[in-house]
């Protein structure tokens, strides 16, 4: 197929094919679609507005009635310096040899001025 034949094909197409016309109700269909789209836009816009108002009220109410959280005691981190707690231990020693009982008891030592007497 040479170039001329190819070009002729398009020329013949343009000559032969009379322009097709759209349906008679074309314009009314376009305006119907426009009307529908406008309606959709209105619905969408009012839905968005409604959601925004609802969210605003919700947030407002939430802020109004929201209680302050109770203060929580946060445990202090353990100190590295260990506190020394004095441990007092009463040691009581007791023994028995079946005839006599021995026991170590706390003895109070009293000092007197006289060195010769206890």
């Amino acid at each position, binding site marked *: *197929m040479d170039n001329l034949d*190819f070009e002729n*094909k*398009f020329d*013949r*197409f*343009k000559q*032969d*094919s009379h*322009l*097709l*016309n*759209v*349906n008679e109700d*074309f*314009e009314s*269909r*376009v*305006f119907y*679609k*426009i009307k529908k*789209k406008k309606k959709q836009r209105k619905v969408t816009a009012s839905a968005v507005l409604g959601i925004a108002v609802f969210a605003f009220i919700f947030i407002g109410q939430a802020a109004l009635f929201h209680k302050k959280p109770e203060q929580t005691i946060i445990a202090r981190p353990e100190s590295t310096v260990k506190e020394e707690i004095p441990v007092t231990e009463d040691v009581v020693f007791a023994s028995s040899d079946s005839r006599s009982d021995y026991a170590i008891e706390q003895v109070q030592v009293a000092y007197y001025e006289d060195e010769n007497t206890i």
Partner: protein
Amino acid sequence: MKELIDRLKKKDEAALKEVMSMYKNQIFNYLNVMLSDKGLAEELTQDTFVKVYFKAGSLRTESLKAWIYKIATNLARSEFRKMKIKHLLSLSDVSETHFSYESSQENEIELEQMLSGLPEKYRIPIIMKEINNFSFEEMADILKKPVGTVKSLVFRGRQQMKFQLAPQKGGIHG
């Protein structure tokens, strides 16, 4: 024309009516050749003018015609993507009725077959150039491509159409 565009921008329905009466059949035929489906072409032509109405405010270009074709082309492109029309328009579907037409119709169908066999990227520029007689500059504006790219697409599209038709011709004569 400027006054018409201004009225269109103000969403004047009478202006849209005027624009429709000027371009509706052109756009319909353009889309019909592209899609080979009258129903779909009419549907997309309606959608084109709905978009024209709503998007007129953003119209910057001076050429109303190029802008309307741009909208129609974009709609056709998205339709190609959506329905994968390339697969629906197989050559075998049309070939059965091929010889029952008169010679003028035969040429029309043959051309439609050739176009439907073309990939979308070549089909649109070929239709715009060969059938709608757009200049390369106008096409570049509509297709948002450099002029050189558009020229190349038309050239390659033509080559591919010739390549497609060559075996058919050989088959007929042979």
